């Protein structure tokens, strides 16, 4: 029997409708037809993590011959239990866009010319060498992403930090979750959430902090709704600066002024203390209090430097600090009625309610991102609602391996796979495992992402290799960095799958193998590592990013450090990498087990996954059966005194609107993949600017009228969307950034959190003109 891709799609269509019908009418039957009969003998199903967001849904990809033809949710994955979102269901189509790069390109006389990949790799190695010889090792840089598979990031770190000896290694995760990292490190001493997705099934109350999960993490949101549906008392409270689809589904939606979450979080703590709802036993045994610097700046100037200090204080000092944050005082800053703040405090303070807080970009893309992470942890620590099922402060990630590759491998300038470059013991460990002289590893961090692109503009960096990311769409204050990349004397290598504005500025384009065209690992938001096998052939001369790096490293003389064969290099890299984490605090699962299972959580100790860290009931790294925040020298979690400070740029007379940017359900990040999936593209074919109806009326615009959005840095003209899926309050506009035809980041500001160095894409000042 011949079974075409089209037959398969039709079968999927019928099955989808049958599933929908069965959901609405349990027990439904179809005369003479059983949906289970639609199986196709020629399809081979294999597990893989989804390619898109940080939820880490398990998928089953169906392959017929040499082509991926279908996707379904993996019922064995505890993450999504067989469910997918609209992007996941259509994900295999990202493999088959008509304009895939299947050969390398080299810029000659201004034009990108098809070139054999081995010749292109020779050129990349030669230009790296010449840049180092001429301008020093810190003139070369690599910029990757949370879409890097773990072996990609690990190889990049080993090559650049261990072999070349530069800490010019950064990833776009700096733009999306660096504040979550520094929030974890400053409060707990170790990175990544202590809880897991089982918290969703156990919580009584969910508070989402600036987090539109219905669109950004739809599978997790559906798990929240399922919990709510099964238990009548479960509540979802949506704290937001803009009314979204998540707001629609919440029990209560509370709108707050941008940046004022700092005041709200402090006011919640004030109220908890005032109402004697502090968990005194937990506080006295497991928490210490600390104060950092204030008025810490915004990083908008080149060479901005900041280093925080931690001064120990006591609970009394903390209470005194909070006196500035009565609910009434916080109301003046936030616009949130004091009664609502008291209500939030009552939910967190109720000892009979388990509370999970979720956040992503709203808190992380924030010029005080580290602080607001600290402050939400404060609430959970004050009440002792942490590290147990349902009681969980939980930072979600936006990319499939922001945790696995960037946070765990440490593909940021200051990091190593274990620890930081500034620590001698960590450098020694890395040098030993990497088989390089310890002196190779520079003890001084170089550039974080924004400063790295500034260095490229200034000419300190002359060679940059960009893999799996699209900074010429995503960098804030974009025009400066695009112009910088195009300056004479810069050499840009881009490893990509499709043409993007970033490949437009490339001197060399290396065609990358994508997702199930190569073997790899992703690590999701709940410390779950997931392996994917190569399921389909690579197109043309496309090459795995890891192998590209190995090829160039070997050309530069580092054969000894990269000795692996093409047959086993991913397994060999995994076995080398996990030596960095060989302790009960972070032990990773072995390769064989990861190949078998739909993901394994770390720490993986004595054959068991650790669901909740820092709680001796669940975490073998704790010395006893109680809480142990072993990441800190005092074995306590730190409550931080962090004040409200205003945004870097706020609306004024000339620029009277806040500009907020973000995503939509159908498109992922810059849309370079999802815009090539016809049904997703058709669903949201172009970006738009959401405007409040009264602001639109004053401006004289209606739906689809063209509006010019102007900031001090640039402008973009796009269509208005009034009463769409999201509704900003008066004085704010919202723009999804997925559409490269409307480069909203030419308008945004490159201010960042001085601790995490993560830019704030949620707040800058603009004016609107009818175009």
């Amino acid at each position, binding site marked *: 029997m011949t079974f075409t891709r089209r037959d398969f799609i039709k079968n999927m269509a019928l099955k989808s409708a049958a599933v929908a019908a069965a959901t609405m009418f349990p027990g439904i039957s*179809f005369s003479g037809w059983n949906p289970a009969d639609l199986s196709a003998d020629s399809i081979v199903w294999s597990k893989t993590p989804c390619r898109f967001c940080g939820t880490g849904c398990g998928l089953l990809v169906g392959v017929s011959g040499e082509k991926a033809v279908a996707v379904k949710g993996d019922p064995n994955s505890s993450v999504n239990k067989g469910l997918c979102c609209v992007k996941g269901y259509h994900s295999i189509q990202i493999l088959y866009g008509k304009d895939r790069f299947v050969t390398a390109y080299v810029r000659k006389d201004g034009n990108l010319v098809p070139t054999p990949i081995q010749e292109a790799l020779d050129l990349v190695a030669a230009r790296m060498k010449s840049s180092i010889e001429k301008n020093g090792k810190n003139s070369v840089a690599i910029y990757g992403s949370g879409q890097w598979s773990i072996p990609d990031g690990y190889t990049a770190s080993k090559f650049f930090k261990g072999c070349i000896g530069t800490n010019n290694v950064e990833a776009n995760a700096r733009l999306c979750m660096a504040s979550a990292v520094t929030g974890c490190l400053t409060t707990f001493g170790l990175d990544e959430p202590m809880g897991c997705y089982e918290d969703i099934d156990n919580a009584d109350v969910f508070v989402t902090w600036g987090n539109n999960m219905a669109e950004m993490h739809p599978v997790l949101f559906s798990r929240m709704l399922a919990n709510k549906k099964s238990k009548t008392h479960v509540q979802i409270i949506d704290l937001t600066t803009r009314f979204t689809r998540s707001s629609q589904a919440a029990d209560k939606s509370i709108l707050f002024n941008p940046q004022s979450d700092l005041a709200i979080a402090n006011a919640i703590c004030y109220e908890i203390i005032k109402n004697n709802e502090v968990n005194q036993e937990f506080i006295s045994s497991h928490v210490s209090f600390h104060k950092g610097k204030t008025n810490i700046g915004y990083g908008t100037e080149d060479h901005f430097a900041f280093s925080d200090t931690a001064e120990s204080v006591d609970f009394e000092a903390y209470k005194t600090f909070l006196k500035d944050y009565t609910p009434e005082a916080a109301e003046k800053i936030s616009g949130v009625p004091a009664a609502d703040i008291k209500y939030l405090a009552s939910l967190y303070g109720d000892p009979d309610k388990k509370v999970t807080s979720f956040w992503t970009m709203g808190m992380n893309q924030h010029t005080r991102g580290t602080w607001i992470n600290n402050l939400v942890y404060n609430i959970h620590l004050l009440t002792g609602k942490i590290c147990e099922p349902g009681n969980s402060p939980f930072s979600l990630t936006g990319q499939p391996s922001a945790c696995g590759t960037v946070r765990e491998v440490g593909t940021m300038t200051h990091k190593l796979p274990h620890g930081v470059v500034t620590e001698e013991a960590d450098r020694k460990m890395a040098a030993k495992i990497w088989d390089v002289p310890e002196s190779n590893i520079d003890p001084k961090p170089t550039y974080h992402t924004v400063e790295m692109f500034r260095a490229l503009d200034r000419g300190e960096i002359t060679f940059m290799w960009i893999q799996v990311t699209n900074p010429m769409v995503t960098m804030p204050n974009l025009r400066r960095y695009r112009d910088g990349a195009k300056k004479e004397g810069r050499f840009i290598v881009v490893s990509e799958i499709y043409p993007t504005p970033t490949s437009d500025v490339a001197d060399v384009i290396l065609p990358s193998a994508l997702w199930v065209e190569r073997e790899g690992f992703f690590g999701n938001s709940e410390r779950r590592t997931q392996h994917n096998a190569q399921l389909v052939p690579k197109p043309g001369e496309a090459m795995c990013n890891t192998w590209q790096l190995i090829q160039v490293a070997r050309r530069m003389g580092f054969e000894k450090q990269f000795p692996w064969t093409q047959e086993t290099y991913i397994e060999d890299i995994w076995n080398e990498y996990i030596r960095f984490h060989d302790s009960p605090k972070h032990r990773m699962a072995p390769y064989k087990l990861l190949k078998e299972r739909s993901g394994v959580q770390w720490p993986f100790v004595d054959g068991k996954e650790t669901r909740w860290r820092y709680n001796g009931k669940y975490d073998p790294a704790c010395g006893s059966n109680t809480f142990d925040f072993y990441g800190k020298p005092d074995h306590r979690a730190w409550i931080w005194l962090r004040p409200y400070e205003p945004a870097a740029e706020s609306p004024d007379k000339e620029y009277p609107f806040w500009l907020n940017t973000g995503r939509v359900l159908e498109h992922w990040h810059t849309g370079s993949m999802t815009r090539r999936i016809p049904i997703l593209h058709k669903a949201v074919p172009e970006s738009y600017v959401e405007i409040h109806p009264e602001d639109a009326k004053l401006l004289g615009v209606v739906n689809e009228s063209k509006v010019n959005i102007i900031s001090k840095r640039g402008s973009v003209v796009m269509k208005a969307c009034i009463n769409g899926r999201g509704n900003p309050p008066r004085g704010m506009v919202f723009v999804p950034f997925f559409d490269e035809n409307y480069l909203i980041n030419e308008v945004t500001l490159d201010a960042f959190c001085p601790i995490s160095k993560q830019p704030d894409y949620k707040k800058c000042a603009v004016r609107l003109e009818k175009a």
Partner: protein
Amino acid sequence: MPIFSFLAFPKTDMKDRLIADLSAMAYCEIKPSGNKDVLILLTDTPDEEANKNLIDAIKALNSLQSLSMAFGHTD
């Protein structure tokens, strides 16, 4: 070549009529439920224009109460 699937709900007591109406239309395949007032409708049209015309024609059926899309694909 768009492929869509829908749940088609008939007006009260018009399930048989809806089955007959849809069965008579080009590009349509149906799977009626044996025990509920709903049927699965699969459309497989040659192009977007034909798809639009078909959907418009289906929506105009007097026997149809509502149509709920379950799956969509366009090449």
